[in-house]
């Protein structure tokens, strides 16, 4: 069975089509949700719900389009929405003033050269914690899913300029914190 056949089967009510899609896309989907939610249990729940949504809405899906971007968008939106709704409040003093981000963003390349790979991963993980769910999502879309800015604009339903702005803001924050940690 290939993807087109799986979708066709699912449209006809054959659940084996869904099983095929789950087997093919679950790992990347859970990893994507995890990068945004930072909670494995929550990420798995979101991906399960997203597949159940696929089962309910597959009849509206245009079979001429690739399945993965459509599904990934659903996972990203659900992850961001869940995080925003869960009201994970930032403790007073923990959040940084946005105006300092631009000042912190220089020197990232030199920091990159200095740190070991595993340490860099930990720094990225820690720095991403300080981004908002929406900013995390654009970083995940651009760097983990390797989407172009035009794809991101289309998938998010916003102008390409908005994506550039969001991405630039997220990058600046990330670079700032990475540079800050690298200096310590």
């Amino acid at each position, binding site marked *: 069975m290939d993807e087109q056949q799986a979708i066709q089967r699912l449209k006809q009510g054959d*659940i084996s089509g*869904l*099983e095929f899609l*789950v087997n093919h896309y*679950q*790992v990347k989907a*859970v*990893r994507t949700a*995890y*990068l945004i939610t930072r909670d*494995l249990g929550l*990420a*798995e729940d979101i991906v*399960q719900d997203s*597949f*159940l949504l696929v*089962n309910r809405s597959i009849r*509206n899906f245009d079979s*001429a*389009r690739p399945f993965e*971007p*459509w599904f990934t968008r*659903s996972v990203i*939106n659900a992850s961001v929405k869940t995080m*925003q*709704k*869960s009201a994970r*409040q*930032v*403790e*007073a003093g923990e*959040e940084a*003033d946005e*105006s300092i981000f*631009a000042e912190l*963003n220089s020197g990232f*390349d030199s920091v*990159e050269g200095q740190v070991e*790979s595993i340490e860099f*991963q930990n720094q*990225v*993980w820690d720095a991403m914690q300080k981004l*908002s769910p929406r900013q995390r999502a654009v*970083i995940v879309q*651009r*760097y*983990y899913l*390797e989407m172009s800015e*035009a*794809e991101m*604009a*289309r*998938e998010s*339903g916003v102008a*390409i*300029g908005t994506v*550039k702005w969001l991405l*630039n803001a997220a*990058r*600046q924050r990330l670079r700032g914190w990475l540079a800050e940690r690298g200096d310590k």
Partner: protein
Amino acid sequence: MNGNRMKDALENITRRKIPDDINLWPRISVRLDKRKSLMQTLRARPLLMILIIVLIFLALTGVVYAIGRAAGYIPGVGIVDQSTPLRILAEPVSQTRDEITVTVKDAVLSSDESVIVFAIVFTGENKPDEKLSPLQDAICLSWPKLRLPDGTLLQINGGGGIGTYDGRLRYPPLPANTREATLIVPCIPYTKSGTLPENWELPLRFVPAPPNMTLIPVIEITPSPEPDFATGTATQNLLSITKVIDTGNSYILIGEFRLPAPPKAADWTVQPGIIKLSDANGQEISYEPPQDIDLPPPESPNAYVWTIKFSKGFAPPIRISYPYQYILSDSSHATYEFEFDAGSNPQEGQTWELNKEIQMAGHTITLVSIQALGTGYNFEFMSSDHSIGSVGVSIDGYTLIGGGGGGPDQPIGWEAGLNYAELPKGKLKVILSDLFILGETKISTIDWQP
């Protein structure tokens, strides 16, 4: 930012936590089994069967109106979820310092969000300087936060309004038993840091909404598929109306425009145009975007959400026309390089009128001018045949820290701004790439009858 390094880091982070052999299917299949089939349910509930037949009849007439109306519209606040009891602001709160007044005029707390309606009024000399630039000046970019009695801070989720200082702040929902909170305004947004009063704290008190509080129903519409006579299958109109609000003297419509994928384009986006409304007599109807409705995210992939408000008194039905234009990436990945001599000491505002014609991917672009601005340059381009949407600009050897662009709102021109840690000087290699080509403008329409 080094993309490969970031990709590797993110990949390794997730691999450490989530193995390749993760298997969600058993849990998903259990949840699928728990769902009764539709026919099982219908056999058990004949009244539901009748209701569905009625809905199918309504669907055949064009649209299905939602039976459960969980959402309500409050003028000035927007659309709120009223499935659980609402809480509202007990009384407006206002503070004035140095002839600047910050007021919380209203608030509505629902199960899915907290909406704070606020205004900042400048009555004296202290006013925001519109010439300030976030790239060049130390300005306040912090939006107000909501502090709960236990000290936790809620960050803003969204908002909207008339300008920067009159509108709504949207926060996550407050716990059901929360009766008070404090709006923290660290500084007045988009003003120069340290010049105006900072660290405002406005205590807010919430009370249950009175039972007679009126919410205007928001009627949800599910668009019915339109038959495609060529294939015999049902397809959906690109344009759909998802919500209708009858405010008494006007209508508010919220809808979506779903983007069709262009043929043979891997990378594309769409430039939406300006919506036009006309009535049964062909008379153009004026409308405005409602200032108190923050657009919800699109409900379907590749979609734009739109909203319009227009007065009653037209000849129905009205026709909504939505123009759109594809912007396609240049599949040849053409680039163009040239040398630009900025000199050893370029001055702020210095402009080089170049009118340089450039050929890229079979299109002619004119680089009209380059202007030094702050720690960067502004490039002005023109495409005389209207065929180019934008082009990426970079200066070889310099790392961009910001930038932006405009257009193609003017008929044939657009700008690209580049900002660096320090202004690049001397002979610079400018590289043009990432061409976006404008496609044909098309119009999608839908008719609506109150």
